[in-house]
């Protein structure tokens, strides 16, 4: 259902890899230290095509291993506090949770991009 919001020529770097956890559906990010994290601030950031390809390969392997679904790359910029912030409004919203419920989703549990 959710399709990569990355332009056809390939993404502008930096990027992160986002997916949904199979079991609970939560939005997860490929983490800096391997594995998956629900925390937007802990997402691994890829600055070039090689690093991005590595993230994608990780996503595909974990998709096949039935850990996550719908993995895709998301373009980000790095905020002053060092956090990767999605540049597209849809992806930025996924990093936080519903705007109509600030008490729910990631914004209620973690540090999220401003």
């Amino acid at each position, binding site marked *: *259902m*959710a399709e990569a919001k990355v332009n056809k020529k390939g993404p502008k770097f930096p990027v992160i890899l986002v997916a*949904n956890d*199979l*079991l*609970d*559906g*939560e*939005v997860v990010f490929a983490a800096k230290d391997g594995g998956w994290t629900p925390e937007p601030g802990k997402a691994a950031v890829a600055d070039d095509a090689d690093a991005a390809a590595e993230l994608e390969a990780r996503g595909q392997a974990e*998709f096949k*291993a*039935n850990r996550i*679904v*719908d993995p895709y790359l998301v373009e980000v910029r790095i905020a002053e506090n060092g956090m990767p912030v999605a540049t*597209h*409004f*849809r992806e930025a*919203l*996924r990093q936080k*949770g*519903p*705007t*109509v*419920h600030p008490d*729910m*989703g990631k914004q209620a549990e973690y540090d999220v991009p401003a």
Partner: protein
Amino acid sequence: MYRYDEFDERFVRDRVRQFRSQVERRLDGSLSDDEFKPLRLKNGLYLQLHAYMLRVAVPYGTLDSRQLRQLALIAEKYDKGYAHFTTRQNLQYNWPKLKDVPDILDLLADVEMHAIQTSGNCIRNVTSDQFAGVAKDEVEDPRVTAELIRQWSSLHPEFVWLPRKFKIAVTGAEHDRAAIKVHDIGIRILRHAETNEVGYEIVVGGGLGRTPMIGKVVRSFLPKAELLAYLEAILRVYNAEGRRDNKFKARVKILVHETGEEEFRARVEAEYAKLNGPTVNAPEGEVERIAAYFAPPAYETLPERSQALETARASDPALDRFVEQNGFAHKVPGYIALTVSLKGIGEVPGDMTDAQMRAFADIAERYSKDELRVTHSQNLVLPHVKQDDVPEVFAALKANGLATANAGLITDIIACPGLDYCALATAKSIPIAQAISKTFADDDRQREIGELPIKISGCINACGHHHVGAIGILGLEKSGVENYQITVGGDASENAALGERVGPGIDADQVPGAVEALVSVYLRERQGSERFVDTVRRAGLDPFKAGFQAFVSGAGQEAAE
């Protein structure tokens, strides 16, 4: 209310068992994502922006208090303490976990509910008039027909994989509250002009979405007993000829449009002639069995108007206003139906907390013959309230934040979940509704403006029915920002019409101002008791375009200053 027989019960329980095993096999890896996705969709389970979403069927929008309490329990235990009523009279949970869904489905089955036919390319849950069985202008309770169609469609082997989803709506009243002209099939129960016999008018090929169309009458009078065979003929033509090559052209509306009304009708009639009607149509006994479930509740014999209510209204302006705005004339003397708005000022349209659901279940049990309805405009209805009880009901609703007197007014806004939840969205929808609601919060002003249904969708799929809003708002993405297109003149009733654009798309923060501008044009132009949509029809689009344009230029000016 319809009650499951043994067959229904077994069918639903089997489906839960089956899905439980499918989830287990998905989690242990024996089912791949590609294999599992269609299976979960067949059970109403979507994957949205933040989480899974489970859509629960509320057939023809009718519930009892036991069911609503169970829905509250699920909201509390497996969701975040609330649920959302949709424009198809269904209910959605926004945060269930995959591993919990089989348990949720079991809890639903305990109260004769399920999530079947709420997703996928099948005949979807049938919708109907929220005042079914209650309205004075009704020929017959449409839910009997809706339930008959449910039973026919649930297990129909031929129609499990249609080219695309298929939505049917039924009304039994003169005034169409079920939007039958914008459904794949719309059915109106009516009396034959000469013989007075009760039958059906069958409308095919309506729909919203990317290519909105008003349905065409393919049969102006169908004898009641022939319904299922005739529907089967329509579905057969569609199943065989509907386009499977292009998702955007796969709905029956495109087939009707491309084939031409006359030719489509001829093909349906030819197919119908080939069918062996008696083997398809429901036996009379079965129709009677179903009808018995929808027999009216035991009403008391009461005077037409309640003195107690009149007295209470005279001394309590808030109660008076509530009854005036949200009351609906009941066909039985001394009774009234009440619309209960889920559109408090600034609230999320259609959302209800578990505490509100429980309180509302108690109110329905005590004061409305244990019955409640869900409307396609995301509100609820207490269908059978004794007028004498209205002051108590009003107090109980008020205590639970459910007494907003705005049914049908400018703050009674339909909004799809939009980008706050929906994976397909191109823009937010709910915050737009909230901003408009706050702009027009003043009661007197709302009343002065009168009936004005605003409908908002967060993408071209039009779940928020924006094409048929008196003011319609469609959220799109333009150059990386959310952008909103405004239409006026849409109508979902028997006078169905599609709204027309008043100008170019605007930014989110301009929308309330644009609505103000359109309302000003209406207030200036309206004659007599014209509603907004009547004024658009009579005065035409131009004054609205001009008002909108003036607003947009003015807003641009301000931004530049």
